[in-house]
C-alpha cells in the first residue's frame, strides 16, 4: 500500500530530492546506513533494502546524515515519504534546527511488513543550505519471507501442511521404514531463516536436516525427511517442530505398522483349541500301522496379507494329509487348514515338527503297539537277541546239559500274544521247558520266560532254530567229548556161588561222575547143561534192572532206592553174567565201555541136593514119600533109601536102591522141567509084606526112612523122615 505523508518535513524530502541531484554532483551530505552490523554509505537516490525476518516482524535501519558542506546555515526543510505504509521513520530534527556541519544527524527507518510481497517506499529529505532547498531521495525496498509447508509421503503426492497439521507416514511392515519428505517453502519476498527442526515420537526420526539457522531465500525451499520405523501395528503419534524466527511450528506425525499375523487352531476330535508356535500338537493314541489325524487351521489375523511359503513336517511318523498349495497368501481374516496324519509303526511317543511358514509346532503322539524284545540269559549274563540272531550256549561236555533262559519282554504299551514257541525241527539235543500256556499274553512291561536246554549226545557243534511266533532265533552250541566213565566195581566178587541163593549185588563207580547216570544191569545165564533156569532173575522180576547214579556220586541206586539188588542163582549149573550199561541222564549218551566189566557168578555142577522128604501118604502096607531136590547138572541116577525099623522089629531088607536115571532123563529132557531148573519133586511108594511083632500093621514097623540122591558127581547128604 502506498501512501503519501504530508509532514513538516515534506520540504526536507523535496530538498533531499534535489540534493540528490546535487549529490550527484557534489553532495555535501554523507549518508550512512546501518542495518544490524552492516553499515554502508548511501547516495541520494540510493535504495535501502530492508528484509524483515517475517511478515509482521519489524526490522530497522539507522541512517546517519552528516553535512560536510561549507554552509553554516543548513537545516532540514521537509521530509516527505511516499510508498508502502510498511515503512516508517523517526529521528530527523525540526526544520528550524540548524545543522552543524560534520555532525551526524540520525534517522531510523523501520520496516514492518504486512505482506510477503516486496514493497517500496521513497523518502525525500529536503534541506536548505541557505539559499535553496535541496532534496535528498532515499528509496526503500522491503522484503519479508513467508514460509509454507508441505510434505510428500513415500510414494505419495505432495500435500500442503498448515501449522499443526498432520503428516501421515505410509504404513510399513514392522521394523521397516517409511518416509515422508517435508518441504519448507519460502514463498515470501525475502530470505527467511529456519532456526531448528526437531521431532518427537517413538519410531520417528528426521534425516536430511539443515544446519541450525539456515536461510532460505525467497522462492526457495528447504527439505528434510521424516522416517518412521514401526515396532507395533497400531498407529503411533509424534510431532515435528520447526523453529522460525518469529515462531515455532508444530506438525503432528502419525504412522502405523503393517503385519501379517498368523494365528493357529487345532481341530481334533471335534474340539478346537488355539495354539501358538512352539506348542505341542497332541495326537490321540494310535495303534501302530493305523492312522489318526489332526487339523491345524491357520488364520491371518494381521492387517496385511501374509504368505505361507511352505508347509512341511520334519521328522518321521507324521505326514501332511491335506494342505493348500504353497506359497499361499492369506488376506487378513482369511484362513486355511492343514491336515496332519499320525502313522505310528511302533509303540511309544513319536515326535516331529510341523512347519507352517516360519512357525514351528511340535507334534507328539503315542503309537500303541506291543513291542517285544528278546533276551537270553546264560551264565548270569543277559544278552538281547534279534530276529534271526543267534543264541549261544555255553560249551558243554557230552552227557551234561546247559540251559539258557529266553526272556520275552513286552516293552510296548499293548499286550502281546505269543501263540507258539517251538523248535524249527525235531531236535535231539535241544529241548524246551517251562513254556507258558498258549496263547500266552504278555502285558506291557511284563516278561515271560522259558528254558532251552542243550543236552549234547555227541561232540561237535549243534544248531537248531527256535521259533517264537513268526520270529526265528538260531541256537548254537558246541559239545566237548564226554568224560570217560570211571572204573566201576561190583559189590561182590566173581566166582562160584551156591545154587538156590539170593545174593545181593551192588555197583559202584571208582570215582564220582559229574553227570547223572542211568543204566541197566542185565543178567544172562549161560547154562552148562543147555537148559536155562527161569528162576535166575532179579528180585524185581526179569533179567534186567534199572539203576541210577546221581551226579557226583558213585553208588548205583536200584528200585525202591536200594543200593543193591538181589537175584536168584537158581538150580542149574552155569554162569550168571551181570553186565552193566551206563548212559547219561541228560542226552542219553552211552558211556558203557566197549568191553564192560562183568560180574560172573558160577553155579557148578554137583552132586544132587535133597531138600525135603515128606510122607505124602501112609497106609498099613505102604508109604509114599515125596522127595524134593535138585541136581545142578540136571542128572540123577539113583535114589537110595535106608529104612530104620521100629524098636523090636526086624527088617530083612533095610536098604533099597532105586535106579532113576531114565526117569530123570525123561524129566529133564521134557519141556515141563524147564520151568523149574533142576528142581524136582518125585514120589515113590513102598509096599510092605510080612508079619509084624509089636505093631498093628506093616508100616508101623518102620521108624524112619533116610534118603540120598546120587548122580555121577556124587551123592547128596541123607535126609531122614520119621514115619512116627
Amino acid at each position, binding site marked *: 500500500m502506498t501512501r503519501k505523508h504530508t509532514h513538516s518535513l515534506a520540504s526536507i524530502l523535496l530538498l533531499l530530492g534535489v540534493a540528490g541531484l546535487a549529490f550527484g554532483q557534489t553532495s555535501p551530505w554523507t549518508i550512512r546506513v546501518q542495518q544490524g552490523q552492516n553499515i554502508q554509505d548511501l547516495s541520494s537516490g540510493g535504495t535501502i533494502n530492508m528484509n524483515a525476518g517475517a511478515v509482521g516482524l519489524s526490522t530497522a535501519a539507522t541512517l546517519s546524515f552528516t553535512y560536510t558542506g561549507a554552509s553554516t546555515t543548513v537545516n532540514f526543510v521537509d521530509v516527505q515519504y511516499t510508498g508502502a505504509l510498511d515503512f516508517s521513520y523517526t529521528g530527523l530534527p525540526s526544520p528550524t534546527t540548524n545543522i552543524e556541519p560534520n555532525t551526524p544527524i540520525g534517522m531510523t527507518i523501520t520496516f514492518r511488513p504486512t505482506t510477503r510481497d516486496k514493497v517500496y517506499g521513497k523518502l525525500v529529505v529536503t534541506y536548505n543550505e541557505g539559499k535553496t532547498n535541496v532534496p535528498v531521495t532515499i528509496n526503500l525496498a522491503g522484503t519479508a519471507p513467508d514460509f509454507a509447508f508441505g510434505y510428500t509421503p513415500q510414494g505419495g503426492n505432495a500435500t500442503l501442511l498448515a501449522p499443526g497439521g498432520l503428516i501421515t507416514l505410509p504404513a510399513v511392515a514392522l521394523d521397516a521404514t517409511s518416509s515422508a519428505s517435508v518441504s519448507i517453502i519460502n514463498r515470501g519476498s525475502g530470505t527467511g531463516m529456519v532456526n531448528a527442526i526437531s521431532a518427537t515420537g517413538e519410531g520417528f526420526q528426521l534425516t536430511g536436516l539443515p544446519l541450525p539457522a539456515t536461510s532460505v531465500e525467497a522462492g526457495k525451499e528447504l527439505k528434510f525427511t521424516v522416517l518412521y520405523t514401526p515396532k507395533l501395528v497400531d498407529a503411533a503419534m509424534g510431532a515435528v517442530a520447526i523453529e522460525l524466527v518469529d515462531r515455532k511450528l508444530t506438525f503432528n506425525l502419525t504412522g502405523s505398522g503393517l503385519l501379517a499375523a498368523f494365528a493357529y487352531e487345532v481341530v481334533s476330535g471335534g474340539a478346537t483349541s488355539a495354539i501358538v508356535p512352539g506348542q505341542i500338537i497332541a495326537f490321540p493314541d494310535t495303534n501302530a500301522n493305523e492312522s489318526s489325524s489332526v487339523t491345524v487351521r491357520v488364520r491371518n489375523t494381521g492387517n496385511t496379507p501374509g504368505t505361507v511359503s511352505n508347509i512341511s513336517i520334519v521328522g518321521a511318523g507324521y505326514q501332511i494329509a491335506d494342505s493348500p498349495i504353497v506359497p499361499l497368501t492369506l488376506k487378513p481374516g482369511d484362513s486355511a487348514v492343514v491336515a496332519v496324519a499320525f502313522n505310528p509303526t511302533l509303540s511309544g511317543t513319536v515326535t516331529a515338527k510341523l512347519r507352517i511358514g516360519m512357525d514351528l509346532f511340535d507334534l507328539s503322539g503315542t503309537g500303541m503297539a506291543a513291542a517285544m524284545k528278546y533276551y537270553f540269559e546264560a551264565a548270569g549274563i543277559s544278552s538281547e537277541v534279534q530276529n534271526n540272531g543267534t543264541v549261544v550256549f555255553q560249551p558243554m561236555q557230552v552227557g551234561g546239559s546247559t540251559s539258557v533262559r529266553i526272556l520275552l519282554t513286552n516293552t510296548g504299551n499293548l499286550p502281546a500274544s505269543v501263540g507258539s514257541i517251538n523248535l524249527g525241527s525235531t531236535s535231539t539235543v535241544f529241548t524246551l521247558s517251562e513254556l507258558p500256556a498258549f496263547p500266552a499274553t504278555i502285558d506291557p512291561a511284563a516278561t515271560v520266560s522259558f528254558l532251552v536246554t542243550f543236552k549234547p549226545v555227541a561232540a561237535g557243534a549243534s544248531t537248531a532254530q527256535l521259533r517264537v511266533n513268526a520270529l526265528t532265533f538260531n541256537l548254537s552250541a558246541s559239545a566237548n567229548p564226554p568224560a570217560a566213565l570211571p572204573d566201576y566195581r561190583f559189590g561182590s566178587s566173581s566166582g562160584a556161588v551156591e545154587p538156590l541163593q539170593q545174593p545181593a549185588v551192588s555197583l559202584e563207580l571208582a570215582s564220582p561222575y559229574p553227570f547223572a547216570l542211568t543204566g541197566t544191569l542185565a543178567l544172562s545165564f549161560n547154562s552148562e547143561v543147555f537148559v536155562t533156569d527161569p528162576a535166575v*532173575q532179579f528180585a524185581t522180576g526179569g533179567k*534186567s534192572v534199572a539203576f541210577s547214579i546221581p551226579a557226583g556220586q558213585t553208588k548205583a541206586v536200584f*528200585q525202591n532206592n536200594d543200593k543193591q539188588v538181589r537175584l536168584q542163582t537158581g538150580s542149574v549149573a552155569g554162569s550168571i553174567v551181570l553186565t552193566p550199561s551206563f548212559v547219561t541222564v541228560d542226552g542219553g549218551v552211552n558211556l558203557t565201555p566197549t568191553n564192560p566189566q562183568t560180574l560172573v557168578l558160577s553155579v557148578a555142577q554137583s552132586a544132587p541136593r535133597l531138600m525135603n522128604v515128606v510122607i505124602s501118604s501112609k497106609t498099613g502096607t505102604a508109604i509114599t514119600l515125596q522127595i524134593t531136590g535138585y541136581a545142578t547138572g540136571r542128572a540123577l541116577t539113583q535114589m537110595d533109601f535106608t529104612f530104620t525099623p521100629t524098636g*523090636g522089629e526086624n527088617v530083612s531088607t533095610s536098604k533099597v536102591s532105586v535106579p532113576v536115571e531114565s526117569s530123570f532123563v525123561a524129566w529133564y529132557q521134557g519141556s515141563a522141567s524147564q520151568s523149574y531148573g533142576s528142581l524136582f*519133586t518125585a514120589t*515113590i511108594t513102598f509096599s510092605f*509084606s510080612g508079619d509084624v511083632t509089636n505093631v498093628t500093621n506093616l508100616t508101623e514097623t518102620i521108624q524112619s526112612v533116610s534118603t540120598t540122591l546120587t548122580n555121577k558127581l556124587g551123592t547128596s547128604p541123607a535126609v531122614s523122615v520119621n514115619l512116627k
Partner: protein
Amino acid sequence: MKRTVFLVTFLSTLLPLVAQTLMPSGPVAGFVFDAEQRAIRPVLGVAGSAYAGGALVGEVEQAAVSPSGKMALVVREGGLYLIRNLAQEAPESELLAENAGTIDEIVWNADSTAAVLYSSAAGTLRLAGGLDGTPNVGEAIDATPLGVRLSALALAGTTTLAGFDDGEGSALYLVPDTGESPRLLVRLAMARALALAGNGRDAFVADGGSGEILEIRNFAGEFEVLSFAGAGSVESPVGLAISRDGNTLYAASATTKEVLAFSLTSREAAGRMPLDFEPSFLKPIAGGSLFVMNNAARGSRPLLVLDAGHSPGVYFVPVSDNPGGEQ
C-alpha cells in the same frame, strides 16, 4: 515072636508101575492171588529159587487157595466160585453164590473143607462149607455189632475167630457155625494178627496196642486166655504164623522190620530175622510152609515170603508179567 518084614518096591519089581510112580514133576511152593494181575498164580520152585508162574485162574476180583493147593474160592463178577483141580491143566469151577457182593477176605480152614468170607461193605461173615465134597454157602452173619473193621480172621473147622475194631479198641470173637451168637473171647487194644495152633483148638492173637501176644486155649470150649509173650514183645504186629512142625510161632513186626520167633514149647523168644522191608501181614501160601508178607509190585517189589519150614528164612519171589522170560 519076631517077624520079618519084607520090603518090596514097586520100582524094583514092576517097572511100568515104577515109571509111572516115579515120574518127577516140578515143585510148586504154593499159590498166591496176584491182585495186580487179578489172577491166581503158582509159585514155581522152592524158596530161594522160585518165581511167580503164569496165571492159573484169571479175571477174578478176589481169591484164596485152599491149604491143599487143590481148590480155590474166587470172586468173579460178583459171583462166588469154587475152583477145583487148581493145579491141573483144566481146572473146574462151580458157582456157589451169585451176587456174593464184595468179598474182602477169604480164609480157609486147615483141612481145606471150609472157608469164611468177610464183606466189609455188607458187614457180614459167611461160611462156605463142604468144599471138599458138596459145597454149601451159609447165611450171612451180621458182624456189624462186633465192630467196624475186621482186623483178624481165622477158621478152625467151621468155627470162625474174628477180631474187630470197635470204638473202644478191639475184641476177638468166636463165631460158631451153629447160628449161636458170637462169643467174646478177649478184648485187646488192637487185635492185629491171629494164628491157629496146630491142634486146631488153640489160637494166638497179637495186640498191636500193647505188643503182647495172647494165647487162647480151647477157644471153642471153656477157654482161657494166657499171655504168651508179654507186652512189648512185638511192636506193631502185622502177622502171626505157626511153623510147619508146630513148634515155633512167628510174629512179624512192621515198625522194627523183623520176624520174631517164639518157641511154643518153652514160650520164650527163639530168635529174630531182620528184614529189609516193612512186612504187611503173614498169609499162608496154600500147600506149604510159606507165608506171604507183602503185596508184590510188578517190576519193583518182589513177593516176600517167610519159610517156616525146616530151614526158616525170608526169601523173595520175583513176580513179573512174563514169568521166567526176559524183562
